[in-house]
């Protein structure tokens, strides 16, 4: 009843090529945006905004980056944490060494530096494929961790390896409260998600998908594999870099290479798989799942805090997390985005399915 496109005719080419062709989808998007801008500050507490919403948005952005590389281009990467680390450290160095730079430009430049690094990491992808490439991206992961751990230059020569980020100003306005941080992050995520959504519908996005489906066949029909794969690496690590910079500046407010270790790479990969490969919406669903699950497990664990030893609780949390991942993969291997699609199909026919 509610979700039906009856009577909505596509009468122009422009209408046919819109991102959201169904009117209800457009309304839903506007509703979500209004909720993000006006609704959240009204109902969410400071604690929820700083502790849950900001990391959720940042992880979504990181997941969009990895989804472009793994979901759309089919290049399995275990080095996304390295791209985030490069972004975070680049942003820190730009902001502290060149204080005149506007902070938004700093984040974008950090993303560009991460993109250059991503092209370097992706350059063997023309010859090395599949799991061989995945293990090769691990090289980048460990190399980046080592570089930031070994050379103090990257944290301005400080003795301690964990460094607070400098304060952020936008047109003379100091970003200080949790809400300011939230708006800054949300701005980046909204623009980034819409840009990504459009990118994957464009010529380059279709080239990525052709490479994913079969790279030899794509090459035969005239898609340049090197350019296509490297552009996917560049865009992916740009998103990763910006997400890493936002993570350091707006969430933890410090730069620390241990925050971007191998398990961060795996976490982002989980978001992409659980959310749905090749889906921008899936990145948000996956990030929500992976951010919320440990919180829920933690809350449940608190209920048993006195009765069960804490070491056992931590291990139980690991077991349940791993078990749920396997369970989700068995139940819905195409991710939460597929569930959403199925639900929309059902809704179109509801309440008369025949």
């Amino acid at each position: 009843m509610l979700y039906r496109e009856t009577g909505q005719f596509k009468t122009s080419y422009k209408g046919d090529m819109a991102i959201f062709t169904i009117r209800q989808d457009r309304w839903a998007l506007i509703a979500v945006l209004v909720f993000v801008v006006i609704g959240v500050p009204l109902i969410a507490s400071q604690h929820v905004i700083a502790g849950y919403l900001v990391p959720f948005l940042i992880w979504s952005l990181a997941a969009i980056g990895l989804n472009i590389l793994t979901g759309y281009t089919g290049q399995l990467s275990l080095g996304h944490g390295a791209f985030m680390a490069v972004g975070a450290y680049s942003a820190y160095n730009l902001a502290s060494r060149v204080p005149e730079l506007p902070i938004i430009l700093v984040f974008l430049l950090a993303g560009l530096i991460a993109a250059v690094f991503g092209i370097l990491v992706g350059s063997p992808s023309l010859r090395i494929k599949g799991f061989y490439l995945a293990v090769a991206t691990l090289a980048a992961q460990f190399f980046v961790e080592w570089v930031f751990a070994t050379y103090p230059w990257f944290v301005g020569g400080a003795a301690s390896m964990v460094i607070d980020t400098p304060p952020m100003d936008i047109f003379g306005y100091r970003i200080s409260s949790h809400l300011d941080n939230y708006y800054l992050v949300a701005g980046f995520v909204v623009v980034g998600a819409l840009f990504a959504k459009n990118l994957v519908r464009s010529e380059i996005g279709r080239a990525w998908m052709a490479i994913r489906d079969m790279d030899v066949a794509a090459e035969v029909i005239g898609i340049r594999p090197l350019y296509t794969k490297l552009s996917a690496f560049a865009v992916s690590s740009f998103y990763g870099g910006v997400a890493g910079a936002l993570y350091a500046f707006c969430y933890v407010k410090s730069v620390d290479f241990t925050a971007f270790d191998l398990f961060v790479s795996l976490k982002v990969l989980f978001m992409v798989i659980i959310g749905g490969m090749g889906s921008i919406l899936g990145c948000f669903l996956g990030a929500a799942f992976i951010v919320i699950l440990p919180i829920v497990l933690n809350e449940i664990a608190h209920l048993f805090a006195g009765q069960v030893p804490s070491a056992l609780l931590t291990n139980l949390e690991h077991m349940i997390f791993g078990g749920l991942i396997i369970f989700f993969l068995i139940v819905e291997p195409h991710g939460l985005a597929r569930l959403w699609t199925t639900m929309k199909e059902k809704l179109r026919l509801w309440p008369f399915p025949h």
Partner: protein
Amino acid sequence: MLMELAFAIEVLIAGLLSGVMYSLVALGFVLIFKASGVFNFAQGAMVLFAALTFVRILEMGVNFWLAVAIALAVMILLAIIIERVMLRPLVAQPVIILFMATIGLNYFLEGLAQGIWDSQVHGLDIGIPDVPWMSVLESTNILISLFDVWSAVICGILVLLLAFFFQKGRIGRALRAVADDNQAAMSVGIPLQLIWAIVWAAAGLVALVAGTLWGQRLGVQFSISLVALKALPVLILGGFNSIAGAIIGGLIIGATEKLAEVYLGPIIGGGIESWSAYFIAMLFLIFRPQGLFGEEIIERV
């Protein structure tokens, strides 16, 4: 000059012998990848699980060989459960889904191992002393750990056993058929599920041996599950589906890694062993993308 040469040889031999230990972990990956095309990220957790089970049973005062038998039985049981619960519903899914499932399994097993037993460091002594080989030290002035030599011998025996197992008898033939082509093997009546359970059990056996040897060296604790990360470059260097590749790859990685650590490490800042092995493996991959002994990748449209 002679001293330096002796030192270089010492480093080389130590590297080769530690490479054998890497091969041992890589072998577990290869077995499963060969038979089912699954890149089993949980191999490290299996090493931890096996070693913890073994050491805790030993600590209860059980006889050594009985403890080996019990630990082995537990690993076989684990293989059967994994096949039943995880692999069977995921049959015919894309490899990346299976890969992610093994990462989930990795978390699960780490939690399980430390939940049932505990996360203390357990010393493990299997009766092989970690002392220099005296007769070699006296005659050539080269220091070789007797423990390394013994573990190389054990690893060699294990590889021979596995090769024999894969080559002879009905099960060996079935294993090779499954490794060659899952679907064709199934269509001629080979019980795929049974073969997978056998392969995971074999990987469990390898994990037990690797966990015992690494456990004596480092103490049985969480960090031995990270040994798997050391085995990954061995794997891509040797090729995902070659047992010989895992052995030779391990030797190459072990030797070059030690040499790089000793001669290159001090120049660029030390602690390079976390990534040097990956770089060495990548250099080889540029020239042979399927690894040294991996099957040739033939691409058709």
